[in-house]
């Protein structure tokens, strides 16, 4: 018997939605809902059956529960027939489940789209929903397993897809997308209802207007990228992480589970990422699982780089269990010197020639100096010799290229070190992919900062000090950082290590920084000697200088 997602949940006990009411879907063949007639183009589909699910938290719960009670015993050939015929499950229990899902999704999406802070109340005991990518998809955690549901356009039709496999459990997402047909499951139906309710909630005249206002909801508008993106969603009751991984227009959920291998069994279990995508042959080794493993490794490294010994700084749930490296115990941890050397080597590369940056004025303004001073003060607030870590993530507000505002879709987080003149700060940086296809890294121009790499941020005052040593001191870009690095290592603004590596880091930073500075053309005119446009200067002294 093919089961829907809620049917599967019912066998796992705690993973079942409304466990008291739904044992199995018996009334599934009781005819179609508004969806039975097929998905209408545009927003026409979204009007079907959203009673009780208008987005208000729990407003439809009672009605849905009563309906679920009446359908508690319905099971049999009619349900199997309905599933095989790809008809939606309209049993009272299913409708109640849809209502419940819709309620939770509405709250989650309303919070994310409005930019509010998500509270702990959003995490229920068993069912945990999290909108990822700024609302591009919603991960529904059901006990140990999770599904992800999203909406997209396909050949002019708005469809809702879910990774659960549909009512039959084996629906192909690719086929559904090609057929322009939504997944036949409770999650997709709930999302459809939620979107309709959000249109009214946000006072938009139509679904099209609503989607134009929030394009992140439309996954077809997300540019295709070869970069593997991983979004942390939520965690299980046992603190195991749930992730969502978009790939080629399809979302997959990946959960962290204990992996018992032959060699690792003696030393205990190793937490590894396991994919739930139906078409992945090996859920431990598929690309989705590998992406999550890499992400977890990166997050752990970022936390170590930031000087923290606890949880990764990139994950909002501090106690979440992430994937562990299989070979971690065999490989000795890198020493501080090796890590500093590797970071300095990476920083020294001129790898940002194709990277967008923001222009800066040649001279600091008062506001920037004040901001940098506040960063300096913050860096001094180290506890027990550690590195302070402010809350929040640094990201660019607008796209470099098209000027679009920040979209939380397709983001990638990294941990970084924030160097000030008085010390270091651990920060979380975020890069996001704009709809125009531009990777928008954090640049810091509007914050009095300069992000040299994706893991290294400097205050403008620090970089300007080096530049001024070069310019005003008639020094070189080699000697000035050398002197400054010695000074900064005494204030822990730079990590202790080989001075030459720090010097290379500073040299690379100044090199990159100088490319972003707008030098007014008027600085290159001598008001005393300039005579006329026809003959600008009557005398010129010229000479070459080897660098």
């Amino acid at each position: 018997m093919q089961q829907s997602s809620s049917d599967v949940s019912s066998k796992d006990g705690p993973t079942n939605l409304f466990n008291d009411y739904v044992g199995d879907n018996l009334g599934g063949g009781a005819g179609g809902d508004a969806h039975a007639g097929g998905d209408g183009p545009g927003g026409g589909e979204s009007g079907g059956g959203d009673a009780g699910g208008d987005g208000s938290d729990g407003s439809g719960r009672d009605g849905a529960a009563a309906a679920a009670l009446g359908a508690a015993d319905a099971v049999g050939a009619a349900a199997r027939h309905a599933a095989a015929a790809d008809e939606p499950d309209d049993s009272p229990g299913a409708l109640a489940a849809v209502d419940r899902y819709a309620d939770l999704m509405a709250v989650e999406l309303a919070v994310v789209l409005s930019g509010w802070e998500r509270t702990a109340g959003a995490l229920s005991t068993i069912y945990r929903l999290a909108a990822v990518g700024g609302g591009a998809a919603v991960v529904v955690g059901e006990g140990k397993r999770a599904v992800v549901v999203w909406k997209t356009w396909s050949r002019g039709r708005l469809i809702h897809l879910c990774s659960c496999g549909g009512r039959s459990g084996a629906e192909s997402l690719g086929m559904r997308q090609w057929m322009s047909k939504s997944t036949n499951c409770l999650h997709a139906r709930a999302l459809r209802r939620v979107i309709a309710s959000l249109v009214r909630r946000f006072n938009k005249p139509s679904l099209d207007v609503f989607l134009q206002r929030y394009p992140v909801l439309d996954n077809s508008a997300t540019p295709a990228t070869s970069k593997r993106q991983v979004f942390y969603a939520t965690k299980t009751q046992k603190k195991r992480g749930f992730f969502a991984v978009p790939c080629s227009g399809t979302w997959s959920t990946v959960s962290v589970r204990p992996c018992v291998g032959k060699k690792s069994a003696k030393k205990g279990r190793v937490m590894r990422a396991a994919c739930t995508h139906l078409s992945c042959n090996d859920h431990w080794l598929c690309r989705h699982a590998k992406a999550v493993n890499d992400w977890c490794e990166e997050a752990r490294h970022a936390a170590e780089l930031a000087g923290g010994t606890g949880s990764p700084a990139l994950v909002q749930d501090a106690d979440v269990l992430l994937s562990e490296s299989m070979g971690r115990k065999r490989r000795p941890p890198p020493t501080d010197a090796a890590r500093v050397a590797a970071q300095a080597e990476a920083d020294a590369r001129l790898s940002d020639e194709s990277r967008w940056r923001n222009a800066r004025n040649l001279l600091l303004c008062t506001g920037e100096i004040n901001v940098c001073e506040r960063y300096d003060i913050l860096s001094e607030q180290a506890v027990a010799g550690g590195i302070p870590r402010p809350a929040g993530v640094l990201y660019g507000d607008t796209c470099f290229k098209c000027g679009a505002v920040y979209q939380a879709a397709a983001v990638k987080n990294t941990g970084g070190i924030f160097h000030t003149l008085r010390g270091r700060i651990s920060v979380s940086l975020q890069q996001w992919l704009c709809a125009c296809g531009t990777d928008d890294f954090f640049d810091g121009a509007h914050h009095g900062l300069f992000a040299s790499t994706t893991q290294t941020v400097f205050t403008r005052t620090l970089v300007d000090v080096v530049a001024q040593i070069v310019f005003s001191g008639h020094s070189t870009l080699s000697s000035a950082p050398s002197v400054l690095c010695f000074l900064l290592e005494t204030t822990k603004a730079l990590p202790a290590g080989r001075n030459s590596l720090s010097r290379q880091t500073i040299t690379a930073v100044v090199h990159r920084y100088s490319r972003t500075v707008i030098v007014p053309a008027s600085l290159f005119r001598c008001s005393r000697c300039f005579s006329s446009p026809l003959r600008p200067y009557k005398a010129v002294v010229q000479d070459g200088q080897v660098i």
Partner: protein
Amino acid sequence: MKNKSEPLLKTTTDLSTTRMDVEIGCSLHQAAARSAVRKRIKAALDESVRLTKEEYKALSHLSMAGILTPDDQVVGSVHSQPATVRSACGAIFFSFFKISVAVRRPADAANGGDGGSNDADVDGETLAANGAGTVERLRAAVAARRGTVVYECRAVEEAVEGSEDKTITRDRWSIVRYFLHTFLAQPLVGAFAGLDRPAIRDLTMQLILAPGAGDWLSASGALESVAVAWPFFRLVGTDDDADPLLLRAIGELFLFAEGVDTLWETRWRSLASPASLAFETAWKDTPVSKYNAWAALQPSAAVPPSLLSAGRFSAQRAVAQALETRTGHVFPDLDAVRPYVTDAKTEKVNADRATRAAAGSIALERELNRVLGADDCRHASITSDVFMPGVENFLCPCGLLVEFDFLDRAESPTHALATQVQRFPLLPNVVFFDTACQLARNAQWRLPWLLNTSSCHCFVDRLHNVGD
């Protein structure tokens, strides 16, 4: 850094050099005469300089020309004539030096060089040689009897007023030697570049027409900045008994030097390639819009995509900076008015040299020795992967950096000229450059019209002027 730096992409046009014959700009047309003058100038003052037969012959003709009285010039129609210039050169040179011819035999040297009283000794030695009876000795004896004809050039000691202080006398002769070396032994193209030409012409006319009147003294300020000319002028012309013929000769020489730039420009037009002439026609007038229209048609002149996000007030400057980074020309305040000129011929020669040099380290060293000299600076950027060729800075006399260029090869006068041609509608009056002579020569070969129009003078600064 060199290997990791971005390649510079410049929008260029070819402007090859036009070779200049040395005789075009020289007051002395005979190479032997110039050689003799140089030889005399470089030698010590109290030494007699041995000349070759050709040099002696050339100087003999020059002395004859100097003796002749030149034709009078007519007021309002003062022109420089080759014969007059030649006469002037002879008059000036032989005012300070004299030539002689003598026959010397080996016995002369043994007896102190008194050639007039040793004929008997020579005969006796010849007889002794005959006594030996060998053919070789006989031949040697015949040669000794005939003697060796020696051509010499000596200084006329009383030509320059002497002084009890030998240093002063030596300095006075140094003035004479510098003047003769510059105006007689070297091409004079560009000698008066950048100066007030009408004032110089006025001075020369007064010297030619009325050298004894003394009015030229007030006009001699035209040569105040020519450190080779005015000391000589002061040395020979301020005395009351100054030779009017010598002053007129100086005037004729200055008149020739003043007009030689125009002469070369005229000659250049008959020798230059069609591309060079077309460049002159196209870029004599230099509105910025004209260059922009030309650059827009060049495939390599497309504005590079800037990856610097800037506000509306800085957007234009950000684009300009991206262009500066790509081309290496950092001229924020000066728009380009002409294409960046390159020399395909020279680059081909350099490429061939580089190919030969790339054969190996020994070959490279040999090539550098040949091109630069064994003791010259190597410019480590030629072979180093660490050093870039560097930048070329352009400063105003105040010391403010008005522009700079990134170099993709070693600094050269070609690059220095191309940069100025690109940005200056009229070149500066004075360009201080470490190899000013090469810069001026390169400009004369390629753009004499621009150099003359701009009245541009290349000058070497004191720090680089080592050895003179």
